[in-house]
């Protein structure tokens, strides 16, 4: 059993696609089941470390520990869910290939422990995201993809320059060697490299001053792709950002700065969502907000808060997949993603799903998001950061405002009975899958102990080596 199979199998399937075009659907499902099985097989054998090509400390290393396992399992699970969700549709070869390579890029970002190799996987993930954005092949899609490429090119230039400086001054490319030698560098050079890395990965991790483009990309991309962006891509970059931060042993002042940035990110995103009338953009802003909380929590380097943040990310990914797939069904029937369409559709099932998704993101008991936010807030209170607790609660009120405004717009529409209602046809299989996801959110909220234990363990591995602040 090798970690490289997680990369090699999707690659093989993509390269070979022209030869089995007719059997795309079974192969696609088989591949996703196989990957899920592979990920399951690694459970209990962690941490796994594997070298590539030759056995030496200098070779490219792949490493799977509990923290990266949490994300690998989450992403492969979401991919399997997506595959099941489109089971009855005609197979789309381009979605299959781009989706596979997207997964390869993201898994590489989680597993690789060599900075230049990370850059390669970073580019794979970015390029597949560009292509995904243009998938609709309309003017909006291309405008979005071009914007995304310009922003992404800036990010990769910054990262490239920082990798070059690291190699020029340290002479190594493996993360562990960089972490060990970074403090022997000249202080100015250290700061330069840190700034370059912060801007480069910060653009991709979508934190406040660098995330003004994100809502446009979500608006341009197809809704299904938005689900993948929100649940997988942003999350992976966030994890990568903090993997690097923890490696470079930051001082308390910069960590404090990072947590303030996370909170500002949260507040700005929720205020933008309040103004927006487009459901895609609202969900995009809500993603930015949730990841802002997670960002602030990661920057605290407290095991309990980080565990809560991991739980938050898991719950958020599930909820966002639910919301975006629900929006997709809404868009297929109603043809619009403006707020107005939310008031007039007729499907009690879908309303329940949306409500569960909203409430979980808000953190209302008994849903999964509640446990996550509770843990984070408890942790911040225990470490004495009451102002962070206060600001998270205050901004959550803003979040609640627009979610309840959306839900209450339905009640108003019922009483006035103005617009013509839209029926949402939803296949039973899909209803079952969405229902499964929603009940998972409820179950995680009622019985959180097992998942929380995993998160706590993951947080401890994630933080190992960081001097406690």
């Amino acid at each position, binding site marked *: 059993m090798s970690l490289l199979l997680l990369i090699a199998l999707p690659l093989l399937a993509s390269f070979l696609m022209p030869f089995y075009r007719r059997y795309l659907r079974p192969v696609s499902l088989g591949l996703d089941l196989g990957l899920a099985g592979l990920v399951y097989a690694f459970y209990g054998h962690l941490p796994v470390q594997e070298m590539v090509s030759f056995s030496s400390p200098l070779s490219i290393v792949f490493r799977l520990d509990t923290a990266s396992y949490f994300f690998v399992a989450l992403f492969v699970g979401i991919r399997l869910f997506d595959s099941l969700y489109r089971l009855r549709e005609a197979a789309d070869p381009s979605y299959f290939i781009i989706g596979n390579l997207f997964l390869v890029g993201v898994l590489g970002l989680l597993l690789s422990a060599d900075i230049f190799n990370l850059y390669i996987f970073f580019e794979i993930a970015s390029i597949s995201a*560009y292509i995904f954005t243009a998938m609709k092949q309309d003017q*909006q899609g291309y*405008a979005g993809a071009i*914007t995304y490429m310009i922003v992404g*090119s800036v990010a990769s*230039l910054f990262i*490239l320059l920082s990798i070059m400086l690291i190699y020029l001054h340290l002479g190594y490319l493996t993360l562990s060697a960089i972490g060990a030698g970074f403090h022997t560098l000249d202080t100015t050079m250290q700061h330069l490299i840190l700034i370059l890395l912060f801007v480069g990965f910060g653009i991709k991790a979508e934190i406040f001053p660098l995330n003004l483009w994100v809502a446009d990309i979500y608006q341009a991309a197809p809704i299904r792709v938005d689900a993948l962006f929100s649940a997988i891509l942003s999350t992976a970059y966030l994890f990568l950002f903090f993997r690097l931060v923890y490696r470079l042993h930051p001082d308390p002042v910069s960590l404090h700065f990072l947590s303030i940035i996370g909170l500002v990110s949260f507040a700005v995103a929720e205020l933008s969502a309040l103004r927006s009338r487009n459901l895609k953009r609202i969900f995009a802003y809500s993603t930015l907000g949730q990841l802002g909380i997670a960002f602030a929590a990661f920057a605290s380097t407290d095991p309990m808060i980080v565990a809560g943040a991991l739980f938050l990310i898991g719950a958020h990914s599930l909820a966002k997949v639910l919301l975006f797939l629900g929006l997709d069904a809404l868009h297929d029937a109603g043809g619009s993603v403006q707020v107005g369409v939310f008031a007039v559709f007729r499907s009690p099932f879908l309303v329940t799903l949306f409500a569960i998704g909203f409430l979980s993101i808000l953190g209302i008991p008994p849903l999964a998001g509640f446990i996550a936010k509770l843990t984070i807030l408890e942790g911040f209170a225990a470490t004495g950061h009451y102002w962070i607790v206060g600001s998270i609660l205050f901004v959550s009120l803003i979040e609640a405002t627009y979610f309840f405004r959306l839900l209450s717009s339905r009640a108003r529409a019922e009483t006035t009975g103005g617009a013509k209602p839209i029926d949402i046809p939803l296949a039973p299989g899909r209803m079952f899958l969405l229902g499964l996801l929603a009940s998972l959110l409820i179950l995680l909220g009622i019985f959180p102990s097992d998942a929380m234990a995993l998160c706590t363990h993951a947080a401890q591995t994630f933080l190992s080596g960081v001097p406690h602040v």
Partner: protein
Amino acid sequence: MLETLNQPTYLHFVITVGAFGVFAIGLIGVLVKKNLFKIFLSFSLVESSLFLFFIGSHYDVGKRAPIVADGVMAFDHRMVDPVPQAMILTTIVIGIAVLALGLSYVVRYYRLSGHTRIDQMDELGEAS
């Protein structure tokens, strides 16, 4: 007098200054130009300047290419570092791939919208 230029310190200084001159030109192009083609080409320019800087910083006068041929019988430490060259080789291919994709999107965008100007790109946003 020209001998001094062969010293690694001067050589690297000249190469670095030249590379970052190109870097600045490219960056100005990215920020100032409105034509999408020119923006992508400016990115290409910035990337090339980084390649120049990286390869140049690893060269000293008197070092050989890391290849055993033509009288060089074995690998020794008077050869230039092969790792940056390998990294740049990979990065060039990535640069070409991204440039090709970007330019093809510009072509398609032009077909649908009739212009290639970034300041007229207003499809996305709250209004639409």
